[in-house]
């Protein structure tokens, strides 16, 4: 790791101003929990000249939950989300995702902002070696994308993004003095790339201020499942978030999002269409799951992900309550 400067930012404006001075020769990079940043620095993939610590900004660490919506400050930790009673009861899929991400130690430090902005866990991406050679052929693709994998086979790493997209979340970024822009999370996340220094639509000098999530309707049922090789902590083979609007035991409409199977979390529109207007039972769940994986285009070593995804979709639909 290279030597770098450290600045504690006191306000969003100060942080934004500091970050705006970044250049290719003198990268200035924000740090929230540091959980991803430190890994990248140790691997030599990111080499900041200056690190701007956002943790010293007091205003971004709150969960605001009321009837009209939920706002998660960018510095809210995964541990806070996991333990928040309101999130547990209203946004269960999100609480579950937080509880199953990383390890208790990491969750205490990791923030929701940093989580959405983290870089992919692709073995090739995480190895400095492959940043210095032309596009690697990525033959060890067992954890890579099984959908939409023509441009890139990498998958976005955030598992919190999976339920957040199912809940239609957006991110809020201050844009110049006073103004701010809101971007739907599904558009904010970009297919990972080795050539860019980020996999989101954030711009230089922008701070992710908060994540907002629309209110939950009374007849909503949801569920989340992250399928891993290990239980203790592991990156997923796939994760699935299901949000259903119910009309009695009939599904009025469904949002199903699949993580770790495509470059960005993928809406399973095919499953959603199968479920709409159907009774929620084993039959419809199986049919919806099958529909979701029909278009899969697995690579040499990740065909096993397809039946697993199918099973997880089915089980998660049935678990929604």
């Amino acid at each position, binding site marked *: 790791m*290279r030597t770098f400067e450290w600045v504690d930012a006191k306000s969003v404006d100060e942080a934004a101003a500091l970050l705006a001075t970044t250049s290719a020769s003198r990268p200035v990079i924000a740090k929230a929990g540091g959980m991803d940043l430190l890994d990248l620095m140790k691997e030599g993939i990111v080499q900041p000249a200056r690190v701007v610590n956002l943790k010293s900004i007091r205003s971004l660490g709150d969960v605001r939950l009321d009837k009209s919506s939920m706002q998660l400050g960018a510095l809210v930790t995964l541990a806070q989300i996991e333990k928040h009673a309101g999130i547990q009861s209203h946004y269960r899929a999100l609480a579950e995702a937080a509880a199953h991400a990383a390890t208790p130690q990491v969750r205490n430090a990791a923030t929701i902002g940093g989580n959405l902005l983290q870089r992919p866990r692709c073995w090739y991406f995480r190895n400095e070696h492959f940043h210095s050679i032309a596009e690697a052929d990525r033959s060890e693709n067992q954890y890579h994308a099984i959908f939409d994998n023509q441009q890139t086979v990498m998958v976005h790493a955030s598992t919190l993004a999976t339920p957040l997209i199912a809940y239609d979340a957006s991110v809020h970024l201050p844009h110049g003095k006073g103004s701010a822009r809101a971007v739907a999370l599904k558009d904010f996340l970009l297919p990972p790339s080795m050539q860019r220094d980020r996999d989101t639509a954030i711009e230089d000098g922008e701070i992710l201020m908060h994540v907002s999530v629309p209110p939950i309707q009374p007849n909503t049922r949801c569920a989340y499942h992250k*399928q891993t*090789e290990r239980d*203790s902590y592991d990156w997923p*083979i796939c994760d699935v978030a299901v949000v259903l609007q119910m009309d009695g035991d009939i599904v009025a409409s469904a949002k199903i999002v699949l993580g770790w199977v495509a470059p960005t979390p993928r809406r399973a529109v095919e499953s959603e269409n199968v479920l709409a207007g159907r009774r929620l039972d084993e039959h419809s769940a199986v049919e919806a799951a099958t529909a979701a994986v029909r278009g899969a285009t697995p690579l040499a070593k990740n065909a096993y992900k397809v*039946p697993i995804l199918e*099973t997880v979709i089915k089980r998660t639909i049935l678990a929604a309550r």
Partner: protein
Amino acid sequence: MSGAEPFEQRTLSAGIVGDAFKQVTRKVPSGEPPPWPTNAELNVVGKDVPRMDALDKVTGRARYTFDVQLPGMLYARTLNSTVPHARIKSIDTSRAEQYPGVRAVHVLERLLMAAELRDPGDEAKEPYPVVRFTGQPIAAVAAISARAAEAALALIKVDYEVLPHVSELADAMQSDAPPVFPGPTEQRATAGGGGAAKGLPQKGNLRGPSTGGSRGEIARGFKEADVVVEGEYRTQVQTHTPLEPHGLVADWRDDELTLYASTQHVMSVRDEAAEIFKLPKEKIHAISDYTGGGFGAKYGVGNYGTLAIHLSRKAGAPVRLVLDRREEHVSVGNRPASLQRLKIGAKRDGSLTAIELHSFGTGGVAAGAGVGMCHHSMYPCPNVSIEHYDVFTNAGPCAAFRGPGQTQGIFAFEQAIDALADRLGIDPIDMRNKIDTRDADDVRARAAERRIGAEKMDWSRRRPPGSDAGPVKRGIGMAQSMWPYIVNSYTTCEIRVAGDGTVDAFCGTQDIGTGTRTVFAQVVAEELGLEAEDIRVHVGDSRFPPGPPSGGSRVTSSLTPAARNAAHAMARDIAERVAPLLNAKAEDLVFRNGHIQLRDDSKTSLGFFESLRRAGVERLTHRADRRDDYEGYARKAGELHISPHAIGGVQFAEVCVDTQTGAVKVERVVAVHDCGRPINPKLVESQILGGVVQGVSYALYEDRRLDAATGVQLNANIDQYKIVGSRETPRIDVHLIELLGGQSSTDARGVAEPANVATAAAIANAFFNATGKRIYTLPMTPANVLAALRSE
């Protein structure tokens, strides 16, 4: 130590305590102490004495190599190859040498661990060692900070002439595969074992066959068989991943070279340094206070240590070189991958008629990738045919790893026996009762262990394979363990007692976390009638009397008899001096509860320390050796003396398989083991727990992955190199038997390796019982599991 020693006939009790215990006669070297009774009748030995260094470890007081801090010490980092196979045309270190803070740069002249060309031919003219794997160490820099050293590395220019390479076993076996070596090779053994048979033929990357263990007529054996089972088993590369990586601090002075090493054998550190640097052994002082795990890979100074010593000499200052996690995974050892084609024939009653093994193993650039001795030595079978090939690949060298070869071998062999039992409709335990019949202690131990294990696992509830109707299936299985009972050819202990009552015990072995200090103290304390904490134990120093390497499960078996012999001599010496004070004959005095007393009259007694004072003792010193086993050895291989009796063990596993997601969960393991006399049951249990946990990890997760195009290890960390975690650790029930073999003055044997070798096979057999399908490929990841469930 020599065979010419005088002997006497003695009658001893031997067998399994509480089971078959009988009188045997043995030729015992004269002067050996009288046999100990069973553990129940001893005071300190056989008791769960807490690990002596536990507090030092949990408080951080224990000094590991990484903690060694010497005045003026420099920090070194290594430059590793970025290509998998290449000639190095030139290396320019001039810019690195000028980097601020850099004190020395050294380029490696010779590569240790890798196989060496029998005839170096043209390679002898190469200016630098040929690069044969990505991550091969090339040079190192010592600087005033690790960061400066690392920055300077980037300034070293290496000019490669890249050669074609091959990373995977299956590819390297092809006749048109790029050769890793241009000609036949030899592999030297290290203190930890390893090495490979000399003079074997080599064609392309295939070195072999070695045919050791073959006998009889294989074709006839299969003709006589009523059933034949066949399978192709594959095991992956596992890296040792000790918590503390390899490292060395070298302090080169004009008169002496001091080496602080994370090692399994301080003597090997001294000896390898002496050989490389052409120094007399007395001029080298190797020290290892604590070692954070080794599992077979930490012997000698290695390439990193060689670099550290060169740098210290050049810089005129101490140098610390500790590998980072990537280097640890890549360049200092691993368990070879294997491909085993195994065919076994048996009669209807289960008796084996033929065992045929064609196996291949790859230890990267090192030979010695065998699959153990279980196939030909565990169960009697008249016809055995073994052909093993080492296959070279452009990957980091293998090293001994907890049950080297045997872990891979038993995964295949004990599954094949299970398959045979299934085909014959014989219960797997009955099958072993039928075939596990050699005349040896391990065989008798396993018979008892099967009974105990079956009871603990409630084996009678075992259902036919694939009984569960739903997608989640449960099953139980068992597999047997076997590992040679090894005694080191040399072990000497020294005991010193000072007039103030301090007792010091010395041996040039080391404690790598197994509890060697503690068992050493227990044995000495038992003889002197003291408590373990009264003994100050000194290990981990090459200046001490020669002690065994911490490998091959041989420390306790080698150390404790020498320790007891020395302590016994000390006790007799003290008894002679104290006898007049008690108006007694020395032979009537015993040491008990901190006192020296008459055997039959505990009131005639003096405190231990008091007697030393009254007898005017200033300092007494006694040294003794580990004598040969009373029944001798089956064979001797270098410093390994191998008993005709092995160490056994039987493990049972209960698994749950989600057949839709391929997730395998090991819910419970019952591990029943023997280790001769357990000197400290708690420490033995720790070893078994560790062996099982590492075995579960091997069975389910660990898998070194190389990128075929570049030879780069893609998961060289402990995030993506997956190791069992707390939630995957099953409930583990350990049961120990006390087996006295009548072989040495303590009758202790080892346990570290046998605790590891059977776990994967037991899990695989439970998998079969759960699903009705065999899993031939490790690790049992969802990808491999779903493939296995789809097969046939």
